[in-house]
């Protein structure tokens, strides 16, 4: 008989904003052991509780904030939560993680997770303490920027709180609105901020003070001490704490994967101006880390000339998407755009992609000055780009369409627009061009939320192994990455970067899990849980889409049809037959059928017979 001695609180806070009812649900032990937390909790709850076909922006959709058993503890970089819902951007399963002190504060209030449904009659925020939860008036905060709102909440409740906040983007249901916290942290790319907005929910605040039970505190502290010593001894540590993910700009340029001009090219002439080195030398003024993080990656940077003294927190994805991808080689402008996106509470990746898409559509005559309020859109044109960004968040003119995401925008514009709408399953592609990286293209193609890098940042491994290699081993490695990153880290709900960037051994995580919970897990068992979560996320998509087709797992036509013209990989495209072969390997290795639907065997092996049963009412399972 397994006994849980800590890590989890075993409780979920349930809030219905329509009737303002608040309840506490005790978690079944088997549920915790089978799904761990974070993404695992979220997808199981959404599968069980959302009827098929729910409008993501209706009161019936559910919003989940979930921690895991290691979250908030003395575990490296453990200050994370997963935000999840049925996505208004993709219509499928959507989640994102965010570094926030709310992680620990929620657990110190006695809860592993929050599940919110319904819709408030007026703007509200939720305030959580060990004494319970309250639904409070937020009319005075509605319309305000996310950073401004966060500051006002701190004036009201003091500094020792954790927050999740939306800005005007979420309020206006921009389909890629995110949740913001602590000045520069964002999460929930598939429109989780819009789900907040649709429920008239402006923010969640938690202020906890209770002990988080831990099975063996002395052991946990020992493992933390060793981990910190290890991380600090690593060769890459100094570069990491000085640049964080920003060193990737130069790396991507060198490897021809830096998205440039709406993913036309993989190199950008002005890359150095927006590089990590330039940032560290000229713009970075403060470092910032999440809770319990000994390797802080937060780059608080300050503009120098244009928008002088404006601060913003930079990392690779937002700088590439607001830099090279829209032709901007000026860090001051990137800082301005990034700051605005954070205040608005919109995703920097998707907004950067939407702007780039609009520019390309304008150049091709699919949109004109009539649609843009007279703006002449072009790459690198700062003034028109800033105005277009504003039009998106205010949903004016063409901005209203661009706020729906590039997939919907392309469908409305028609013609060949779909070829350069850079998304998979409706989620805009994050910042790696894949003309010369078919394996990374596959990672985007089969990512369980749409095109995002968090599940398999395959690119560096692919470059080492050989871009041209088409083999089962290549796809096996991709699946291993999904298991670790999208499975283990997203369910433990701690940051993956200590393992990825500085090589903290995976073996330490089961040991920390044992110290926290008292329960023995092997890495193999955690991989099985990861596969269970992947099969369940897939089932969710199939149920919503009423079936599945291979084409849903394909990246956009541009990577197949329009070759790179610059850099060492000029002339490269992805060959369709190569992509198709890699996709077939992926399905086979996951025991999914040739159309990407998990087989009965896959469901059985991961303990999801009940899911297979329900799904078989919609599609035939092999």
């Amino acid at each position, binding site marked *: 008989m397994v006994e849980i001695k800590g890590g989890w609180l075993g409780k979920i806070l349930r809030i219905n904003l329509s009737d303002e009812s608040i309840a506490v649900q005790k978690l079944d032990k088997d549920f915790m052991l089978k799904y761990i937390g974070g993404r695992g909790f979220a997808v199981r709850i959404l599968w069980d509780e959302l009827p098929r076909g729910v409008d993501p922006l209706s009161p019936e959709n559910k919003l989940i904030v979930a921690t895991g058993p290691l979250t*908030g*503890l*003395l575990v490296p970089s453990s200050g994370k939560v997963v935000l999840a819902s049925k996505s208004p951007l993709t219509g499928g399963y959507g989640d994102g993680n965010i570094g926030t*002190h709310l992680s*620990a504060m929620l657990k*110190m209030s006695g809860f592993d997770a929050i599940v919110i449904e319904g819709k408030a009659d007026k703007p509200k925020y939720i305030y959580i303490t*060990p004494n319970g939860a309250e639904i409070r008036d937020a009319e005075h905060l509605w319309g305000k*920027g996310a*950073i*401004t709102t*966060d*500051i006002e909440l701190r004036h009201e409740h003091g*500094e*020792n709180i954790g927050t999740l906040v939306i800005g005007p983007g979420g309020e206006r249901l921009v389909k890629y609105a995110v949740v913001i916290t*602590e*000045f*520069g942290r964002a999460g929930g790319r598939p429109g989780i901020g819009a789900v907040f907005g649709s429920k008239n929910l402006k923010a969640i605040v938690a202020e*906890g*003070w*209770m*002990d*988080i*039970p*831990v099975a063996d*505190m002395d052991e*946990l*502290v020992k493992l933390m*001490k060793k981990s*910190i010593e290890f991380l*600090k001894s690593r060769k890459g540590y100094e570069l990491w*704490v000085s640049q964080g993910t920003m060193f990737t700009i130069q790396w991507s340029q060198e490897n021809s994967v830096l998205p440039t001009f709406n993913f036309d090219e993989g190199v950008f002439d002005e890359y150095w101006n927006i590089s990590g080195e330039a940032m560290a030398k000229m713009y970075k*003024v*403060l*470092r*910032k*880390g*999440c*809770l*319990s*993080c*000994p*390797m*802080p990656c*937060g780059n*608080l940077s*300050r503009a120098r000339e244009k928008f002088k*003294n*404006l*601060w*913003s927190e930079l990392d690779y994805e937002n700088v590439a998407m607001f830099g090279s991808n829209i032709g901007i080689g000026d860090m001051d402008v990137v800082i301005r755009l990034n*700051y605005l996106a954070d205040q608005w509470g919109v995703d920097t990746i998707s907004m950067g992609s939407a702007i780039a898409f609009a520019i390309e559509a304008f150049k091709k005559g699919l949109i004109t000055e009539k649609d843009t309020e007279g703006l002449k859109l072009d790459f690198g044109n700062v003034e028109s780009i800033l105005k277009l960004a504003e039009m998106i968040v205010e949903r004016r003119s063409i901005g209203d369409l661009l706020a729906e995401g590039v997939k919907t925008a392309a469908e409305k514009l028609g013609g060949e627009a779909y070829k350069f709408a850079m998304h998979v399953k409706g989620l805009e592609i994050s910042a790696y061009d894949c003309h010369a990286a078919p394996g990374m293209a596959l990672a985007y193609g089969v990512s369980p939320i749409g095109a995002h890098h968090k599940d398999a940042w395959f690119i560096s491994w692919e470059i080492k192994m050989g871009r041209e290699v088409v083999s089962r081993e290549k796809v096996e490695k991709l699946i291993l990455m999904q298991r670790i990153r999208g499975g283990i880290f997203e369910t433990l709900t701690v940051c993956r970067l200590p393992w990825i960037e500085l090589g903290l051994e995976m073996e330490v995580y089961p040991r920390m899990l044992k110290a926290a919970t008292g329960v023995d897990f092997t890495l193999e068992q955690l991989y099985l849980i990861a596969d269970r979560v992947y099969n369940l996320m897939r089932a969710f998509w199939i149920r919503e889409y009423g079936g599945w087709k291979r084409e849903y797992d394909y990246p956009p036509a541009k990577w197949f049809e329009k070759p790179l013209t610059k850099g060492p990989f000029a002339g490269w495209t992805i060959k369709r037959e190569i992509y198709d072969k890699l996709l077939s390997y992926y399905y086979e290795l996951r025991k999914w059928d040739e159309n990407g639907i998990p087989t009965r065997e896959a469901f059985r092996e991961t303990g999801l017979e009940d899911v297979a049963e329900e799904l078989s009412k919609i599609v035939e399972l092999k």
Partner: protein
Amino acid sequence: MPRIVFNPASCSGCKICQQVCAYKAFGVQNLSKSKIVINTVFKEEGPVFHKAYVCRHCEDPQCVKVCPTGALHVEDGIVKLDRDKCIACWSCVNACPYNAIFRHPELNFPLICDLCGGDPECVKWCPMNALSLQE
């Protein structure tokens, strides 16, 4: 006077110091039971900065002056708390000009840094070397 010195330019706001302080003092996982508090404070368009609140072991400590029972006292230049004498009146919390004494909802005595007897845990653990012990 010995005290903990904070370098805001090195700090990242990770609160590992708070976590280990609570562990050392109470053996628990609870960053709100810490005798040092780090806050990251921000204004609308910046700046962002990290602030530390921790006892400075003042030469003329206001907390000791207002303590009605002598629970707070100075020993070898260090402000110390005798929990047996403390009546939880919280006068010290209000008197500290640096907001460096804390009240926890579940504890009936204030949280004040005692420098761990001269080898403070927070200083040993800070991954950014933002904390140091000044003799």
